[in-house]
């Protein structure tokens, strides 16, 4: 508990420093960090180099991709408290849209992107509208099923390549001086980073306004949220659809970089890993989620020299971390006098006597 407390303070101090900073300092800090992010591919440090795969590729996938997807899933799981175990489905829909339209039509990446995002959102509506009546575990099971359905559908549909998938997906057209080729992952990383920053900005704006309040209320108590006059169905579907849109962006970019996709890339493991990023980093806090995604994506690559046992080592590290910090590395900001055990208070509220 002691180390939990001290690091909580560290996080709160960071937030406090930010809140007390004048606008120019916030802008300067933001520019500084964004610049560092854009410069990351040029880093060449033995400490962070990844044996077995080149660092710049790792930055794009898995690191950048996990960060983007974790931010998207955080809208669903972290902000509105809906447990989605089939998140990979929306990623797959984005990737397949890019693959099919890229190989069968003359549309380029920039034209396919909105279509892919739109289809991911549409499938979010179609899945969300009937299933978001369900709560907790039931929703988790249905979404898990949806994730598998999408993958199995792709395996069994020969017109989209069946289990062999789709090859020869075109790369995005050149963008000013940036050339998108299989050999150079840097432009893809920058593209992904740009999308990620835009999405962070959008999510933060939304979370600070009425939708954020509604999601917060729904997460804490769906029934009471309705009593407050919140159309909980609408906001839940919206959270679901926005999450799907983010995964759709990821899928389109991913497919255009990897050039060929097969259904088995979009398996349950991805959904679970992205969820792990969210939980590990700190549900609901976008900075925690980013940190969690970076660590969970990067560590297995970094310790690749361990070869076979690396996943075991990774798993043990996860279990140890979650025991030390059950709320994640950078949990959501706590309230003044906030009792971290509130859920037990809620459950035992009835018999309590003042």
């Amino acid at each position, binding site marked *: 508990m002691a180390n939990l407390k001290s690091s909580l303070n560290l996080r709160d101090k960071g937030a406090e420093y930010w809140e007390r900073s004048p606008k120019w300092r916030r802008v300067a800090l933001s520019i500084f960090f964004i610049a560092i992010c854009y410069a990351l591919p040029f880093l060449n440090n033995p400490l962070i180099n990844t044996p077995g795969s080149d660092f710049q590729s790792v930055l794009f996938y898995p690191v950048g991709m996990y960060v983007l997807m974790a931010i998207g899933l955080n809208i669903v799981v972290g902000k509105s408290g809906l447990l989605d175990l089939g998140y990979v489905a929306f990623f797959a829909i984005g990737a397949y849209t890019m693959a099919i339209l890229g190989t069968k039509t003359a549309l380029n990446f920039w034209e396919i992107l909105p279509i892919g995002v739109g289809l991911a959102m549409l499938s979010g509506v179609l899945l969300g509208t009937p299933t978001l009546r369900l709560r907790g575990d039931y929703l988790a099971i249905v979404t898990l099923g949806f994730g598998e359905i999408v993958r199995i559908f792709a395996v069994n549909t020969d017109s989209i390549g069946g289990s062999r998938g789709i090859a020869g997906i075109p790369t995005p057209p050149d963008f000013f001086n940036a050339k998108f080729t299989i050999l150079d992952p840097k432009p893809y990383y920058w593209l992904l980073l740009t999308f990620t920053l835009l999405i962070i900005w959008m999510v933060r704006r939304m979370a600070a306004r009425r939708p954020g309040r509604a999601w917060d209320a729904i997460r804490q108590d769906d*029934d*009471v949220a*309705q009593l*407050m*006059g919140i159309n*909980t169905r609408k906001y839940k579907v919206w959270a679901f659809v926005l999450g799907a849109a983010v995964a759709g962006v990821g899928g389109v970019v991913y497919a255009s970089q990897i050039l060929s996709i097969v259904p088995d890339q979009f398996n349950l493991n991805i959904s679970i890993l992205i969820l792990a990023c969210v939980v590990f980093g700190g549900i609901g806090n976008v900075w925690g989620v980013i940190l969690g995604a970076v660590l969970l994506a990067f560590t297995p690559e970094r310790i690749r020299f361990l070869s076979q046992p690396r996943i075991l080592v990774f798993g043990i590290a996860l279990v140890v971390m979650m025991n030390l910090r059950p709320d994640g590395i950078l949990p959501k900001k706590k*309230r003044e*006098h906030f009792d971290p055990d509130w859920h037990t208070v809620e459950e035992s*509220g009835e*018999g309590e006597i003042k």
Partner: protein
Amino acid sequence: MRLEIKDLRVHYGKIEAIKGVSVVVNEGEIVTLIGANGAGKTTMLKTISGLRPVTSGQILFNGEDISKMPAFKRADLGLSQAPEGRGIFVGMTVLENLEMGKYNRKDRKKEMAEDLEKVYHLFPRLKERAFQAGGTLSGGEQQMLAIGRALMSRPKVLLLDEPSMGLAPLMIQNIFNIITEINKTGVTILLVEQNAQQALQRAHRAYVLEVGNVVKEAKASDLLNDPAVRAAYLGTGAH
């Protein structure tokens, strides 16, 4: 604002929890539903506020049947519930909880200061604890917050579910005094209570609910002196 429930039936799966109940709450009244555990009191309130679907029957709010309307729209009409077990947002501060009560008011920015002042006047404790997380409040304070939050939406009819549950005797007196005070400002109240003594002393009229049926309906003061009611719910008379 008159609330009329006609021949209401509600099911949990195959089990019929409410078996054709009719209740009338006239404007300006405090009406109480009393009854033992499992009589269907909470189900009644949840159905009126829209959290449980009706099987059959009508819920008339000022003459309009709202029995098929989703809960969030009923809240907009001026039907506000302080839920059982102090259903407050434990992760939000007291002030944020109160603000949530205004979520759907069109003029919420204009009304906010004035209504906060009113609620703080009724519950000075909430003002002291405004920036504390809801989950850290005592049981009585949470109950105050649930009622205060319901008031923030300027309800015409207030539904109170067991406001005395789990509270110390002094706090129970306090809460019931405030309920009477709220009623005097013109808010119609439907009160569900196990604490029949207090409820009957405060209410104008009362209904006795037993396993999903209304078995008695009368002026509250009459029920207070009814030997059968005294024996069953007030813990005296049988001795």
